[in-house]
């Protein structure tokens, strides 16, 4: 097979000892672009005896986010090694690696080691780790686009900085670092983040292989009869059956676990003969069952799998020919990734169907086509100043070799994540891990990191052992096992969901209706139920907001629908060429929207004021995603309430938001630009958004990663019980007694950056300032506002004091 041009380019760079990022779609040999480079390097260094040389020590460190990928990659590497007649060994190290294998690796490192970020940090927690990395030539980071933007990415940054400096200190060399990434909007930044500790800019190698993607929308027969929202697209289930039947294997992507349960049931009801040939795959299903589904997919034993983001990543399933996306994919990158799950080979076409859950979503299909054509893909924002990860990392180093703060600080500052860390913050962190914050001097026994001759170390075996078990940044919800009374494990479910059910109530999990019998020893005991009605858990995850890129394309498509509609109406009834089919079928809806109100153009912001028997509604359509809308709704409500005392309830979706009040809302041409100003944004956010509640939710992960929450470990449960506390309790205690704690501040920062997407919020306001605001007064609800009404997720804005709120609420005492 002839190598691709990008592979040869990458090999050239590697041979010359350069670092960089390779950008290539999956299935195009991106693994080999770096792996073969490492081999060529080795052959060049030992031209005479490269075939016989063994026990060379670690040469290539291959970091991958997915355990499941390790085996496949390892196998592929071994094939090449055998073909070349070399003696290299390939090792795998992750949570599944047994102790014997780990011991073997400790005695003699394989030449190539495939590892997860977590296991790499565990390696750094071993005494003598610097020795392991002396011979290392290349650090490769696979799926870097996945890691970037997460705390696991920060773990990679830290590990790279450590390994690079270990070599520099000992032998004045440094390894090359190569990232492998799918296309994202900020590839240059991705490279900058990864290579920051090296102090070099590095290369960017692009594959430029275009993958053909065919997108087809599943259109409802009659657009007017189609429910405007809230039916999960289930009415179109009959159109899905023939697609499944005509394809070898189909993956059906559903956005939430709850919806995937419902879809699985509906498919079985609509086509009973599919029983046994379709399966369900999501994060709450027992792992063994998930593995079985994955294996059955490989073996082409299944016609279809209903899945969530749980199948977004991972190994390729060759038999998959077709993908169906139900509902908005929320982003271009995610849609492309899912489309890429079908027709995996470079020359094959990826076929993806889009099934809308409400008719307006059809515009998204048109927007996606356009975005794919223009390669308008979202960026992954790297995380900054994650003090929780840093605290974990410092403990990791303190277990193995210890660290000297003066030496470590510049090394940390060389990473992208911590380059803006101040000396003051560094001092606070050191104080926190050695003295434990505020203490009562002689009555304190805080013990974690000790300073011995200037070196920061953990000497307690117990603390060291516990820390090793807690290394990692993926924090899962408290889960409860679900088992049949008669025995037999079904899966796991969030504890909070079960705690809201009483025995006798029926819920759905793993495609089955189950009646809760009792809760015992952290296990929910259930029996099969034939009840018609059941509660489908609404999992909190999966509520991704619409991306900024997709939002922009959406606004453009509305513009197009608006402009073409006129040409369309004025000339013939023949649809114009190049006019998206989705926009064509939506014409009746746009017509109604235009009659009742207005279809906004790309440079317009539409505001609708409607009076119904419920009260006075104000609908705003920025198309900026749920999170930005949530924050904007609160800010707008606050700003209006400064004009006149008024109370609102909110609702929002990815397209817009609603304010509802029992009195007229004073928004008109005279004040609307002022209400949407970006001035005083920060202080208005603080006054309007309940950031404390949001921060409390963020604090849970931070507290676990930062080692404040002790999750216990086998064999010591009894003792551990006295060490248990909830994140919200800790949050309250820190808020009251140590408000300047860095981890507490980080939780507010994360709310600000991620929950409210402050940057995007500000950009939206700036965009609105330079666009035309159109206010209409429709006589009835419009097609645009309907999905918001149905989705309504209400939150009250009150400026009353907590106490008054309690008094007012007491009448509604929940029981």
């Amino acid at each position: 097979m002839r190598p691709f041009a990008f592979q040869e380019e990458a090999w050239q760079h590697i041979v010359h000892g350069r670092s960089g990022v390779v950008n290539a779609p999956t299935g195009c040999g991106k693994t080999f672009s770096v792996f073969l480079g490492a081999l060529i390097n080795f052959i060049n260094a030992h031209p005479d005896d490269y075939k016989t040389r063994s026990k060379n020590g670690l040469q290539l460190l291959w970091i991958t986010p997915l355990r499941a990928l390790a085996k496949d990659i390892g196998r592929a590497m071994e094939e090449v090694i055998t073909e070349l007649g070399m003696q290299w060994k390939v090792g795998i190290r992750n949570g599944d690696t047994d102790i014997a294998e780990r011991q073997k690796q400790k005695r003699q490192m394989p030449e190539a080691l495939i590892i997860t970020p977590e296991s790499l940090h565990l390696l750094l927690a071993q005494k003598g780790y610097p020795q392991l990395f002396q011979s290392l030539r290349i650090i490769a980071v696979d799926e870097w686009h996945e890691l970037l933007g997460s705390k696991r990415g920060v773990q990679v940054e830290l590990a790279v900085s450590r390994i690079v400096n270990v070599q520099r200190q000992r032998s004045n060399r440094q390894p090359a670092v190569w990232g492998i990434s799918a296309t994202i909007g900020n590839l240059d930044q991705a490279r900058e983040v990864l290579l920051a500790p090296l102090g070099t800019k590095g290369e960017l190698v692009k594959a430029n292989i275009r993958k053909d993607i065919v997108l087809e929308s599943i259109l409802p027969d009659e657009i007017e009869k189609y429910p405007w929202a809230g039916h999960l697209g289930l009415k179109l289930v009959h159109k899905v059956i023939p697609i499944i039947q005509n394809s070898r294997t189909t993956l059906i992507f559903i956005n939430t676990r709850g919806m995937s349960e419902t879809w699985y049931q509906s498919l079985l009801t609509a086509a009973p003969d599919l029983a046994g040939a379709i399966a369900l795959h999501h994060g709450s299903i027992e792992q063994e069952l998930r593995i079985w589904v994955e294996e059955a997919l490989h073996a082409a034993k299944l016609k279809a799998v209903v899945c969530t983001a749980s199948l977004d990543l991972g190994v390729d399933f060759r038999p998959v020919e077709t993908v169906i996306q139900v509902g908005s994919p929320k982003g271009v990158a995610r849609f492309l990734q899912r489309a890429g799950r079908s027709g995996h080979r470079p020359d094959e076409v990826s076929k993806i169907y889009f099934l809308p859950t409400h008719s307006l979503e059809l515009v998204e299909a048109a927007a996606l086509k356009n975005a794919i054509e223009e390669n308008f893909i979202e960026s992954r924002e790297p995380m900054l100043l994650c003090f929780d990860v840093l605290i974990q990392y410092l403990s990791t180093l303190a277990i193995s070799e210890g660290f000297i703060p003066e030496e470590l600080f510049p090394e940390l500052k060389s990473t992208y994540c911590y380059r803006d860390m101040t000396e003051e913050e560094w001092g606070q962190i050191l104080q926190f891990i050695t003295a434990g914050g505020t203490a009562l001097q002689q009555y304190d026994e805080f013990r974690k990191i000790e300073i011995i001759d200037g070196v920061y170390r953990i000497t307690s075996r117990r603390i060291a052992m516990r820390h090793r078990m807690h290394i990692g940044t993926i924090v899962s919800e408290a889960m409860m096992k679900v088992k049949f009374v008669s025995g037999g494990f079904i899966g796991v479910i969030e504890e909070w969901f079960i705690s809201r059910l009483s025995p006798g109530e029926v819920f759905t999990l793993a495609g089955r209706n189950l009646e809760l019998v009792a809760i015992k020893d952290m296990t929910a005991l259930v029996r099969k139920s034939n009840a018609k009605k059941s509660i489908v858990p609404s999992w909190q995850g999966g509520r991704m907001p619409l991306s900024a890129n997709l939002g922009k394309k959406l606004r453009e498509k509305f513009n197009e629908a608006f402009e073409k509609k006129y040409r369309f109406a004025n000339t013939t009834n023949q649809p114009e060429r190049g006019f998206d089919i989705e926009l064509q079928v939506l014409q009746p809806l746009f017509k109604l929207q235009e009659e009742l109100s207005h279809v906004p153009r790309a440079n317009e912001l539409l505001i609708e004021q409607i009076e119904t028997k419920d009260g006075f509604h104000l609908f705003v359509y920025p198309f900026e995603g749920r999170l930005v809308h949530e924050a904007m709704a609160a800010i707008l409500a606050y700003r209006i309430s400064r004009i006149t005392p008024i109370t609102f309830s909110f609702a929002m979706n990815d397209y817009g938001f609603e304010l509802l009040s029992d009195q007229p809302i004073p928004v008109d041409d005279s004040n609307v630009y002022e209400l949407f100003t970006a001035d005083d944004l920060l202080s208005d956010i603080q006054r309007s958004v309940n950031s404390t509640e949001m921060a409390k939710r963020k604090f849970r992960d931070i507290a676990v990663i930062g080692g404040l929450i002790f999750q216990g470990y086998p064999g010591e449960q009894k003792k551990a019980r006295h060490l248990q506390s909830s994140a919200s309790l800790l949050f309250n205690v820190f808020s009251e007694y140590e408000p300047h704690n860095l981890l507490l501040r980080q939780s507010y920062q994360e709310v600000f950056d991620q929950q409210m997407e402050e940057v995007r919020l500000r950009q939206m306001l700036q965009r609105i300032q330079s666009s035309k605001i159109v206010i209409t007064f429709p006589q009835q609800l419009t097609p645009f506002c309907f999905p918001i009404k149905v989705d309504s997720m209400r939150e009250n804005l009150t400026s009353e004091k907590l106490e008054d709120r309690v008094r007012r609420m007491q009448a509604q005492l929940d029981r």
Partner: protein
Amino acid sequence: MRCARFPAPAFPPYICTMLVPTPYKLMQQQLWLSADRCIFWEEEKTLIVSDLHFGKTGHFRKYGIAVPQSVYKNDLQRLVHQLQYFQPKKLIVVGDLFHSSENKELQLFCKWRNDFPSLEIHLVKGNHDILHEDWYREAGICVWDEELSVPPFHFRHDLGEAAPISGRYLFSGHIHPGVRIKGMGKQSLCLPCFYFAQNFCVLPAFSEFTGTARIDPENGDAVFAIVEKKLVQLQ
């Protein structure tokens, strides 16, 4: 721009304010409920508290979990204020006076204990009270294994399956009761509370380093929620 640090809201420093307690009549006895999570029983000149969990922050810190110790300091101070305000002769602890095994924080307690030599302390053992009996004796604490009876009241840590005793009203702790208050939409709060049912009551946990477990009051029960250092009767 890149690293704009978002300021966390400033929390006011804790101020030890003493608000007028709420009177409550029970079995012809005069009780005073304090928002500082305790009850003064006037006839017996007794202060009733539960779930103080002294030594909890120290226990966490010993294991490397940096909980601010000022929570404990403040808990002790609050107790002092209650003792100074009500001037009781007796302190009845309905279980979980200490959180775990001995640590230095308990030395601070002993020092504190010496400042109140005339105060009788009665501890009805809770599941967390695992210290050796000698320790309690030396600290001048009278320990009751299961329950303590001071007519017309009865004290027991865990309400559990305890059978009602006729003519006696049962005081318990253990569960750290909280009451959920729900408004329109998604608003909801869980506040620590005093919970008075027909023939028993559950005391709030005295320590601020404790969570809450939601209770389901019935009609006719009295519930006092603790809202920002004030008591609010909910029903």
